């Protein structure tokens, strides 16, 4: 390829990071839930999709993207908590298969309900006026919104880090992710913690939905491919490791972006190859087993 200039590579890198941002966000939610509840949430992609739909809905309702950035995750998180309380909770202690398959069934229902409410074709999603258009980074033009996306992800991850490292709730999560017994010993109502963690994880999925909506078509099936991708990221990073989720998210984003440049047809495959290699060399994933934020 003749036109492989440094500028192009640099721009490609930025693109990869922007892609990775969404991956990371999704994986963080998955990883949080798995780390604490050892529940493999197959409805994660569906919660992401619901987030995208509700995001647009609340944006048009309130006329403010920022407002919907707050409301939507709250609503999605609430749905998540309902799911945990009435569907997932009865399955604790039954191994990982059952919750996994139950959430899979749940995803079907979420997809269909969005079809019923918002229609099979989905909703047109507009980029918030302030973030429209593209800016010249000196290495080429890049969409302003995707830059904002990178920023937003950084903020969310930082906030999460503070929550987990600096608060009592975080302490409990860290303890719980290693051994639920400890939490009981601490005299905490574990059930409540699990409820909150599941809510938090799904809320983050919803948030990534709102953030991703302006960059792509919003339709009921949008969560299906996303699910596979975010699993790859979570597993590469090591289930239950937030740090892993973030690092792997960016890694996968960049790998995907670079293969799209050098061998576009293999872009999709590349992330699966990456996962296979990582797991065969390190069966626990990059940051597996290590503590949540380690």
């Amino acid at each position, binding site marked *: 390829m003749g036109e492989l200039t440094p500028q192009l590579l640099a721009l490609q890198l930025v693109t990869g990071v922007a892609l990775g941002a969404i991956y990371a966000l999704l994986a963080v939610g998955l990883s949080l839930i*798995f780390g604490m509840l050892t529940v*493999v949430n197959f409805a994660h992609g569906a919660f992401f999709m619901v987030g995208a739909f509700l995001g647009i809905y609340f944006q048009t309702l309130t006329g403010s993207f920022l407002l919907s950035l707050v409301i939507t995750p709250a609503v999605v998180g609430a749905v998540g908590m309902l799911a945990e309380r009435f*569907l997932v909770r*009865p*399955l604790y202690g*039954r191994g*990982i*298969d*059952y919750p996994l*398959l*139950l959430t*899979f*069934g*749940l*995803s*079907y*229902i979420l*997809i*269909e*309900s969005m*079809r*019923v409410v918002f229609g099979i074709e989905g909703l047109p999603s507009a980029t918030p006026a302030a973030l429209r258009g593209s800016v010249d980074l000196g290495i080429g033009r890049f969409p302003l919104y995707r830059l904002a996306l990178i920023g937003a992800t950084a903020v969310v991850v930082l906030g999460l880090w503070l929550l987990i490292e600096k608060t009592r709730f975080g302490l409990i999560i860290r303890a719980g992710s290693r051994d639920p017994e400890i939490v009981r010993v601490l005299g905490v109502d574990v059930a409540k913690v699990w409820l909150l963690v599941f809510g938090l994880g799904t809320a983050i999925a919803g948030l990534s939905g709102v953030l991703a909506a302006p960059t792509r078509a919003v339709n009921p099936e949008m969560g299906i491919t996303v699910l*596979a991708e975010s*699993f*790859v990221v979570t*597993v590469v990073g090591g*289930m239950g490791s937030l740090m892993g989720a973030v690092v792997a998210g960016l890694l996968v984003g960049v790998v995907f972006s670079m293969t799209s440049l050098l061998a576009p*047809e293999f872009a*999709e*495959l590349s992330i*699966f*190859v990456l*996962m*296979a290699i990582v*797991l*065969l060399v390190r*069966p*626990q*994933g990059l940051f597996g087993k290590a503590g949540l934020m380690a």
Partner: protein
Amino acid sequence: MKATGVHALMDLVARHRVVAVLAFLLVFPLLMPYEALAVNILIFGLYAVGFNLLFGYTGMLSFGHAAFLGVGSYLTGMSIVHAHLHWLLAIAVGVAAAALVGLLIGHLAIRTRGIYFSMVTLALGQIVYFAFYKAESWTGGENGLRGVTVAPFEVLGLRVDLTNPIAKYYFILGFVALALGLVSRILASPFGAVIEAIRENEKRALACGYDVARSKILVFVLSATICGLAGSLRALHLSVVPIDSLHYLQSGQAVMMCLLGGMGTFFGPFVGAAIFLYLEDVVTSLTRHWMAVVGAIFILFILFFPRGVWGSLMARWQRSATREPSSPAVEQSGPA
């Protein structure tokens, strides 16, 4: 008295489970709205049974089994379309290829455990998917492989025309019967006991002196072989091989069928496949929101019949059986 009646029946079924299932399958088409559905149930029933060998009996949840269904389908299809092989040879090729791919994937995947195992099988399965997707000149790529047609032929003096649905059903049933016989033998064999031991407690199985790694590879290959046969038959059934047969959603289907019917039981997966496909068929023709219905039914099953339809029946029966310790079925063939 009712319990003992059920018990007697189930006992009989368990003793001669293959005979029982065949007797049922012989009249099965009469119960189905149309033959193509019955054939699908045969094929996916077999697919689920093969998958269950790994999932239900050895406790390894693979998300990559579509690879074996697909490879079986494609290799059989390609042997007919490109190499013009005899159908029997084509089936053999498909099954052998599936076994080989099973050996490769199994060999790599068993290094990992739990969800990581599931994910590695998923990834390797996707790699197979992609390989066939890209080999467009041989596989037809996304358009799928077309023209897998078999001219009418003679078997044991009988003329078989695969465009005749009834003939096709019994033709395919013949192979399914053989495969079920094999699976039944595997489960009743010494190795059958070993894989259950591995499912129950890997550490202890090692301490007992069993080479767990090799046992896992062997069961993986056996499972792949069965699923490969299901694939081969599907190619003959549909006369096309859709690329979707390699997709991970197809792997997911095997899991659902096992779960609906009851994993770790002999009939369970078959029952699951029947319920799954029949429900899908009925529901889709009634409402466009079939996904919601299927999803809901699925959740209800996991919450209230975690053992699946057949599994729950078995559980009830065994409770009554353990009251009479002299039930041979319990110790020899294990759960039917």
